[in-house]
């Protein structure tokens, strides 16, 4: 009995994971887009997943001679169907793709992919996928794709020209064409120099990866094995800037032939052909250190030099335009021209200016030279140190000396530029700072980043509230408000100018009028402050006493000139304090 139970448990333990994996792999389909492809033809692994499931991919397998791209999701479809009861059933299908790039023809076995579906790892398909890549035999007859031989080795800085020629049988109708150059614009340490200009007109062809267009030129048709081909040429000039190997991976020329007639909105059927060029490489050698002259400024190649001047008979102080032209097969755009002001042979000249013009075919540098003496009778040769790639050693090319005549004019026998000006002293970096040298650098801690904003917010709110409250009582900038505010000051001024009790009384009336917003006349003879608003009994009493005092002084004609002024001012200050 126990044995029977153990056997059953063993069966369950064995079958259960298989069953789970089987369930997980349901709705998963992994296939090749095509098991047999022509070399160059696009091919990939298509992964289709049904339903809304979480998909993760494990590391892609490694197959010799086969490159895998990253997994990309190519589509996601969703459809709604209705079952027999009319209930909607949502179906989803997500498609992924891994593009494959074979290195050459042959049979490739691709192991199953590791895919995690909703957290469960499955291997799919159940068996390895077989991919057969065959040579496109038709293409070898219908297409032409070849390259001009390149040197196996170049020196860093030495330019080389890459030339690819491609074409197709003239009887074939072109639908599309492209070059697949995996190394295009991706070679490190290589820069393109200006390429020779085509004399026969230029066309453009897309180049993968990226399908960026590149200029090509059409060549005359050629005959090969009884077939006539339209031929085009892609030519570029490069310079390797560092030693190493410049690799050119397998290049492909894809030609799409139109085999059907297209309509207004369709291009018609086409058939693709692929022609390859095997990988090749160039070894870039370093320019040797041994024997390198100090004056070598980067010139590499087989370079020659000529010189010319427009005028050879000049007056002292005039400039000679010495034009030096370097040409040949070399890095004409990349070396520094000689600095004549540093050459002892040019001690008798002042270099006023240098104009440097670069082109793929030549380098032209024009020096403006001024002879410093009428004794100068020739322009010395201009040397350029070159690493000669033909000889594999450093050489110097120099222009021929040029005879000139310098005529001294009156008073111009001396140096036309006068004594050399002292050069400005160079800027020198400031020294280290010992601890004692520096003072404090402002406050170390602030009030916090919020306080400023908080105060500003409170300020704005307070301003708005206060402003509204004040405006409810009237315009503070109005005439009456300003008169009320300025009443005490005006009273002081008037009292200072007052000639007697009469003026003091009039000033008091005007003060009360300004404070109460009434007319001064309405305060004549009045001994109560009731019209000016609420006033304390004490203020009322003082006002009555003040009026009495003023009246007495006024009508009796007694008292000093300024009688009552102090009392008026004291009363006014008290009244303002009370808010009268």
């Amino acid at each position, binding site marked *: 009995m126990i044995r029977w139970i153990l056997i059953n448990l063993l069966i369950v333990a064995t079958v259960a994971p298989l069953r789970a994996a089987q369930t997980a792999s349901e709705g998963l389909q992994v296939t090749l887009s095509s098991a047999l492809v022509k070399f160059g033809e696009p091919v990939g692994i298509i992964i289709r997943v049904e339903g809304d499931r979480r998909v993760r991919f494990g590391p892609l397998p490694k197959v010799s001679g086969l490159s895998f791209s990253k997994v990309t999701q190519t589509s996601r479809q969703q459809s709604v169907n209705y079952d027999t009861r009319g209930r909607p059933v949502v179906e989803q299908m997500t498609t992924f793709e891994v593009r494959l790039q074979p290195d050459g023809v042959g049979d490739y076995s691709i192991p199953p992919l590791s895919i995690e579906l909703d957290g469960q790892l499955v291997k799919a398909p159940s068996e390895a996928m077989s991919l057969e890549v065959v040579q496109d035999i038709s293409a070898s007859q219908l297409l032409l794709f070849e390259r001009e031989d390149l040197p196996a080795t170049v020196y860093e800085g030495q330019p080389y020209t890459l030339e690819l020629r491609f074409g197709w049988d003239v009887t074939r109708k072109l639908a599309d064409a492209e070059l697949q150059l995996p190394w295009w614009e991706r070679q490190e340490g290589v820069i393109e120099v200006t390429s020779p200009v085509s004399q026969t007109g230029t066309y453009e062809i897309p180049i993968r990866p990226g399908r960026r267009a590149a200029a090509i030129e059409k060549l005359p048709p050629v005959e090969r094995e009884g077939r006539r081909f339209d031929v085009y040429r892609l030519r570029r000039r490069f310079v390797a800037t560092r030693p190493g190997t410049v690799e050119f991976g397998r290049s492909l020329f894809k030609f799409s032939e139109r085999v059907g007639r297209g309509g207004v909105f369709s291009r018609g059927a086409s058939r693709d052909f692929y022609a390859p060029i095997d990988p090749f490489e160039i070894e870039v050698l370093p320019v040797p250190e041994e024997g390198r002259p100090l004056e070598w400024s980067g010139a590499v190649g087989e370079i020659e030099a000529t010189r010319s001047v427009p005028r050879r008979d000049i007056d002292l102080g005039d400039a000679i335009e010495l034009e030096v032209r370097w040409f040949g097969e070399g890095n004409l755009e990349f070396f520094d021209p000689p600095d004549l002001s540093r050459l002892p042979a040019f001690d008798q000249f002042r270099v006023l200016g240098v104009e440097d013009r670069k082109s793929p075919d030549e380098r032209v540098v024009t020096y403006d030279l001024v002879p410093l003496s009428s004794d100068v009778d020739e322009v010395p040769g201009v040397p350029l140190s070159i690493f000669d790639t033909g000889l594999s050693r450093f050489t110097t090319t120099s222009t021929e000396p040029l005879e000139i005549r310098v005529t001294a004019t009156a008073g111009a026998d001396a140096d036309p530029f006068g004594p050399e000006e002292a050069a400005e002293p160079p800027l020198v970096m400031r020294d*280290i*700072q010992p*601890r004692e040298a520096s003072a404090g*650098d402002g406050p170390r801690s602030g009030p916090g980043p919020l306080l400023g904003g908080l105060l500003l917010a*409170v300020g*704005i709110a*307070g*301003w708005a509230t206060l402003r509204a409250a*004040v405006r409810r009582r009237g315009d503070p900038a109005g005439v009456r408000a300003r008169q009320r505010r300025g009443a005490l000051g005006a009273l002081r001024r008037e009292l200072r100018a007052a000639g007697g009790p009469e003026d003091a009384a009039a000033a008091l009336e005007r003060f009360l009028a300004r404070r109460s917003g009434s007319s001064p006349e309405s305060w004549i003879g009045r001994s109560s402050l009731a019209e000016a608003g609420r006033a304390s009994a004490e203020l009322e009493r003082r006002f009555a006493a003040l009026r009495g005092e003023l009246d007495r002084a006024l009508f009796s004609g007694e008292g000093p000139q300024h009688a009552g002024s102090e009392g008026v001012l004291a009363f006014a200050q008290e009244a303002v304090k009370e808010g009268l």
Partner: protein
Amino acid sequence: MGRHLTRQRGAAGGGLVAAALLVASLLLASPLVAQDLSGPSAAAPEPVEIGADRGSMLWRSGDRDGAVAAWAAALEQARADGAEPAERARLAYNLGVSEAARGEPMRAVAWFEAALRSSPRMGDARFNLGLARADAGLGPRSGDGLVETLEAIARTTTPAEAEWLAVLAALLFAGVGLLEALRGGRWPTRLLLAAALVQPFLFAPLALHLLERGSEPFMVIDPAGVKLRAAPEDGAERVGALPAGSVVSYLDELPGWTKVRVGDEARWVPSGALFGLRL
């Protein structure tokens, strides 16, 4: 007499104690001085001031490497102690001078930049930064445009100063607002308008410091610049490049790689090409 004798005895005892202390201090002082010149002990970290002074002494005596080591250690200690920003800036400045003397202009640029970020009005650091940038083939620190100029002005304040400046700006507005609310009239209104207009300028330094508060600025010090990668590996997709002298914000790091913010994107760059500017 007895009291006198006792006092004499006491004085003699004090003299003995003083002599003992003197001898002990001399015995202890010699190794201490030697230790100062040879470097901090492993047991206790050297105080920042002593490390900085020792670096200066070594620099003056011609021991450049020793000076750099002393200043670097002092800077570490200053960070740990939370020392004054001016103190940290001075150490960074000295390290910048030493890097410039060693022919490392990009590292010198980074040290001077770090010093200025800690002590924005350090004139010597600003001067040397200009020279180091020129040596490294970099352009001026800030552009000539209005925004760059305003930003450069805003950067001349420390965070604390920026906070005080914001408080002053708010008080200015409140004061002028009080005047305008109570008096009204043309001039108070104009003053209020002017006070409102200067607020953005007075708050700008604070805003700038707040924006940069959480970020860790790093400078690209590889003279050739760096390539930005989508993932922390050499073969990962290249998604751009940064020239030398660019400043980016630190996000994360893995061994050999640092994740930085470039614009709104997170990118990976080799850690060796970056230099932390926060002291």
